[in-house]
């Protein structure tokens, strides 16, 4: 469903993605792990067509993103939901307006239909009855939940998660992981998550890929990742300060 081939991106001579190849099958959840600043979020932005690669391509359902015009790209994006790292909630709107924005701008649904969908999605993420609140009144965990409700408001076929548990306490993070697993089973979505939280990666992923120095150095199932003898992957999983990876 999503094919990434030879994706290369540099910023001021620093190569962030170096001929990255990844295929994600329909209904699969791929977790991309890697150190902070290794290019995980840049990879996600290429999948969304928010960045143009220096070389290589991203293809979704046979459509190469770099060959689509703006209108076609917007049509394709409407099939995607994204949970941004900081939530990216619109601070000039209430929670309900945030969740319903895509529906009110892109569909002909009536206000009451949108209101029903918003209430349902907020209930799915455990935020019943807070639609009227301003986003500034929400805690970190609630912001992530509200952003997740917005990401799934338009019944997406593809969901992208950018550091879904970063900055959350372990219990709230586990709650977000549970939500992601529940949504995968409920909506049967194809998903890519980028994270450096291994607990989250093992819980939500079907497959794990590790990005290091711009390249995919490991790509396999969760069990293969756990039992891999790759010293870089193992050091990253354990979080050891000694090994091939030096503390930043």
């Amino acid at each position, binding site marked *: 469903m999503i094919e990434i081939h030879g994706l290369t991106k540099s910023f001021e001579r620093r190569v962030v993605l170096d001929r990255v190849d990844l295929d994600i099958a329909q209904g699969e959840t791929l977790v991309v792990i890697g150190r902070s600043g290794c290019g995980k979020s840049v990879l996600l*932005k290429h999948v*969304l067509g*928010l960045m143009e690669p220096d070389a290589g391509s991203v293809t979704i359902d046979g459509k190469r993103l770099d060959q689509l015009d*703006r209108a076609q790209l*917007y*049509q394709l*994006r*409407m099939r*995607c939901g*994204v949970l*941004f*790292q*900081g939530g*990216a*909630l*619109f*601070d000039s709107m209430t929670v309900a307006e945030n969740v319903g*924005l*895509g529906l009110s*701008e*892109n569909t002909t649904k009536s206000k009451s239909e949108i209101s029903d969908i918003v209430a349902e999605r907020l209930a799915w993420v455990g935020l019943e009855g807070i639609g009227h609140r301003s986003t500034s009144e929400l805690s970190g965990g609630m912001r992530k939940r509200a952003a997740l409700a*917005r990401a799934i408001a*338009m019944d997406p076929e593809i969901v992208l998660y950018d550091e879904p548990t970063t900055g959350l306490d372990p219990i709230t993070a586990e709650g977000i992981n549970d939500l992601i697993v529940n949504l995968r089973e409920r909506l049967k979505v194809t998903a890519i998550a980028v994270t450096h939280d291994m607990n989250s990666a093992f819980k939500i992923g079907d497959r794990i890929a590790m990005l290091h120095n711009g390249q995919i150095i490991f790509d396999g199932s969760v069990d293969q990742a756990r039992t891999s003898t790759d010293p870089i992957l193992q050091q990253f999983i354990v979080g050891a300060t000694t090994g091939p990876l030096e503390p930043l």
Partner: protein
Amino acid sequence: MVWRLLGVLPQFLSSIRLVVYQMLTMGVRSLPLIILTSVFTGAVSAWQAAYQFQNFVPMRYLGTAVGKAVVIELAPVLTALVVAGRVGASIAAELGTMRVTEQIDALEVMGIDPVRYLVMPRVVSGAVMLPVLVLFSDFIAIMGALVVAVVMVHLPATTFLNGVKLFFHMSDMYAGLFKAAIFGIIISLIGCYQGFQTRGGAEGVGRSTTGAVVIASVLILISDYLIATALFRV
């Protein structure tokens, strides 16, 4: 951005709610500041003109001089500079914050064109509301000048107002309003562009905000000269 803006302009009616909201923010909420600056602009114009006129030009022409200066130059340019400081800065700061917190990316991935959703309503509102503010400014500045003429210069109100009407041409008024519309487009477009180009957190937002005010102010003064030379032939 300009080409993308021209592309989405035909969708203006479908975004009318956003345009009206921006008109309120840009126009109505700027009115108290415009009233304050216009009163004193008119007052100081009358006082300075009277000072220059004494012993050389009959005071019955005081209204003529002030009226011309206000309608053609002072009201459009000073209103534009005040709005650039208030509204241009606020647009750049708001959109800059949206850029660094990924809210603009969020719009993109929801299939909502940020140029249609964020830029077009602001530019249309700038083009419409600045002439409206200038009309208010024209009236209030002349009233401020009238008060100075009557109270300080001891000129009868009818003499001052007859002076305003003496060489008043509607074409002067239209020229002032045309300039205001151009200034409104400059202020909102530069604010949006600076906001969209913001990088690097709070420091970047500060840079964009300052840049929006400085660039818009310089462009207002340059375009004022260019429009003046095009519209008023010597």
